[in-house]
């Protein structure tokens, strides 16, 4: 299984602050995804990203969220002004092509105080 890495592993922030979560790319993986998992709940899709643009997003992914992959470097998820309810595990996932197996990273645990 391809290794997927994410940084940081943990992040604590104050409500209203901006956070950036990072996912390290694998060279032959073209599709990127962000999912979140609130403690004790199921994994929820946020957004998918291909060819430097969003291909799909859920209703959770509102204007507070943004994603980018500048210059083929890390794939990032930015939360502009965090809210208490943004506290969750955030997982990056990748696959080589549409409909292919998605491999998940270890996640970033975000705690908003």
């Amino acid at each position, binding site marked *: 299984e391809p290794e997927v890495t994410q940084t940081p592993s943990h992040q604590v922030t104050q409500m209203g602050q901006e956070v950036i979560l990072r996912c390290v790319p694998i060279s032959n993986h073209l599709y990127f*995804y962000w999912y979140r998992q609130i403690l004790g709940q*199921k*994994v929820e899709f946020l957004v*998918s990203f291909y060819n430097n643009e969003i291909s*799909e997003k859920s209703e959770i992914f509102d204007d507070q969220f943004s994603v980018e992959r500048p210059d083929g470097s890390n794939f990032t998820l930015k939360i502009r002004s965090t809210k208490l309810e943004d506290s969750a595990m955030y997982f990056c996932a990748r696959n080589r092509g*549409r409909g292919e197996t998605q491999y998940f*990273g270890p996640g970033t645990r975000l705690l908003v105080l």
Partner: protein
Amino acid sequence: GESVGLHLPTLSVQEGDNSIINCAYSNSASDYFIWYKQESGKGPQFIIDIRSNMDKRQGQRVTVLLNKTVKHLSLQIAATQPGDSAVYFCAENGGTGANNLFFGTGTRLTVIP
């Protein structure tokens, strides 16, 4: 929206016994299904997948069965080991061409030594 659910939230089995974890899905358009294993504090780990043109697929110690008539998916683990203790999620893609996954709520498998 999609609804992927599990019949049992918890399952306890004796070491060496076979485990069966069930999942019901509601979107008849889904054509790709995956089972993930999630250990505490980690990201979902791919176990096995199946496409809708199949009704059974086997891996190492694991078998996935798909019954499209009743929209039911199951994961069978043979000779369950303590290392199999985790939360197991089924996920579906929501339809042909869809690339994001919809997860169920998970079943916690506990293996009793």
